[in-house]
């Protein structure tokens, strides 16, 4: 695992035609961080993620992804270090089986077949897709197809994972899987950058909030400092409950809070 910073943006200016979307924007995302990219509806957040993946290039300033300057490079040059989950990712599915779909990326990158198979099996297992491996993606329900797209973004063991509304259209089971996978990825040292409206998901798996407003970053703080303390970002239910029960430091997820709440009221105070 290298020591390259997953993402650095320095004084980036970017716009479409005469309209500037980002101006003088700087941001650093370190290894292991989980960043929630927040802000009003508009092109700023998604634009930033496109810049990170070299899908667009800044008109001024620099973007360095996993130690590589994006200037002059193309998105396929970053496929080995970064994974991007697009909105409506099922639009990109094309292979005949889930396995072939997920194997597409590594094969394009020239991996040897045994390595491809091992990576595909691993990621399908992590996302609970092993039983669907031989099925046609289009035969699967919507949330499962999104998980297939996520598997495709994860199979290369990216150092930077970019997610654009990852929980939209997911049912509860799929949301739980995505949350587990994101936490595991961060624990391994990869960085996660997510554009999301799902504050419950963000509170559960991310820890840093970067707010985009007026073409640049206006707030960069721990997520828990922002949630519930800013009118645009109310505290999601589990975080709100945890705080009010004095469990502020516990990850606001059902899996981590439930064990602390099982002691029946008669047996005394809660364990924190």
């Amino acid at each position, binding site marked *: 695992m290298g020591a390259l910073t997953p993402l650095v943006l320095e004084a980036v200016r970017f716009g479409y035609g005469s309209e500037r979307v980002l101006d003088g924007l700087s941001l650093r995302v370190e290894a292991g961080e989980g960043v929630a990219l927040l802000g*009003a*509806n*508009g*092109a700023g957040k*998604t634009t930033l993620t496109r810049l990170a993946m070299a899908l667009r290039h800044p008109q001024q300033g620099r973007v360095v992804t996993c130690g590589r300057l994006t200037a002059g490079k193309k998105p396929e040059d970053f496929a080995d270090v970064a994974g991007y989950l697009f*909105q*409506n990712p099922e639009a990109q599915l094309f292979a005949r089986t889930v396995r072939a779909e997920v194997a597409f990326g590594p094969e394009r990158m020239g991996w040897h077949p045994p390595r491809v198979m091992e990576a595909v099996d691993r990621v399908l297992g992590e996302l609970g897709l092993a039983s669907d491996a031989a099925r046609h993606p289009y035969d699967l*329900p*919507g*949330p499962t197809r999104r998980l297939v797209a996520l598997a495709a973004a994860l199979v290369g063991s990216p150092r930077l994972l970019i997610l654009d*509304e990852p929980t*939209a*259209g997911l*049912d*509860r089971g799929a949301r739980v899987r995505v949350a587990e996978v994101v936490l595991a990825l961060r624990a391994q040292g990869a960085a996660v950058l997510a554009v999301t*409206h799902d*504050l*419950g998901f963000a509170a559960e798996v991310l820890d840093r909030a970067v707010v985009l407003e007026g073409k640049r970053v206006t707030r960069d703080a721990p997520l828990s400092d922002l949630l519930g303390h800013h009118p*645009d*970002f*109310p505290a*999601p*239910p*589990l975080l*709100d*409950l945890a705080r*009010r*029960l004095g469990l502020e430091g516990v990850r606001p997820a*059902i*899996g981590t*809070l*439930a*064990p602390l*709440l*099982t002691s029946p*009221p008669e047996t005394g*105070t*809660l364990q924190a």
Partner: protein
Amino acid sequence: MSALEMQGVGFTYPGESAPALVQCTVHAESGAVTWLTGALGAGTSTALLVAAGLAPRHTGGQRSGQVRTLGLDPAGHSSPGSLGGRVALVLSSPATQLSGIAETVAQEVAFAPANLGWPRERIHEGVARALAILGIPHLAGRDPGTLSGGEMQRTVIAAMLVLEPELWLLDEPTSALDAAGRALMHALLRTEAARGAAVLIASEDTDGVAAVADRLIVFEAGRPVLDGRPDDLLRGDPVWNAGAASTTIAALGRAAGIRAPRALTVDEGVAQWAR
């Protein structure tokens, strides 16, 4: 008579062996918000399409049983004209609901009223009102193709609101909206019901809809299995046994081994667990 009456309705999509709806009997009343939920594939989305008549008219497939939407069979041949503008359908992917011919958001919202032949003045007033209610008057001159997901979803809802429909059919209408947008949407459901419209919404956003729905119908394997007040149903186990889910706090309670009736909101949760 209810705004929507589905009696023993069965529906199978073309090419599918298993039916999407089986003996489905649902009534939706005017002036109330009826909420549908269920596990993946339980049939809530299909029920809405059948209510709109789009299944089987657009989707193909076989429908059995009786459907009366505002007193008419929505899939009948005479209906396309008669229900136009009286039934609003909002689906979860805003991009495909744009007309594709509007150059501005205002034109997009004016699309349906213009098709119905409304006089120009009435259209302009209606559009301005709808944009204001959805909080997007500043987008009136924008090209719909340049909108973000949330802006697009608000535009699509405004485009239906302008018609002052008698029946709303909504399938996950808040998927692209942020917290403020969701709050706005939920408030809108209540004001529409107060205006006398029947609101039928399929949604997995239990935390958001629980507070505004008058009635909850839980679907399982193509048919409604539970029907009652959200407050009552969400506190118990049957909703979970049916493959659906309750609020986040109730889910936490269930995971923590708390027995029914469970706390639904954060306030109730604090009362339940705090010392």
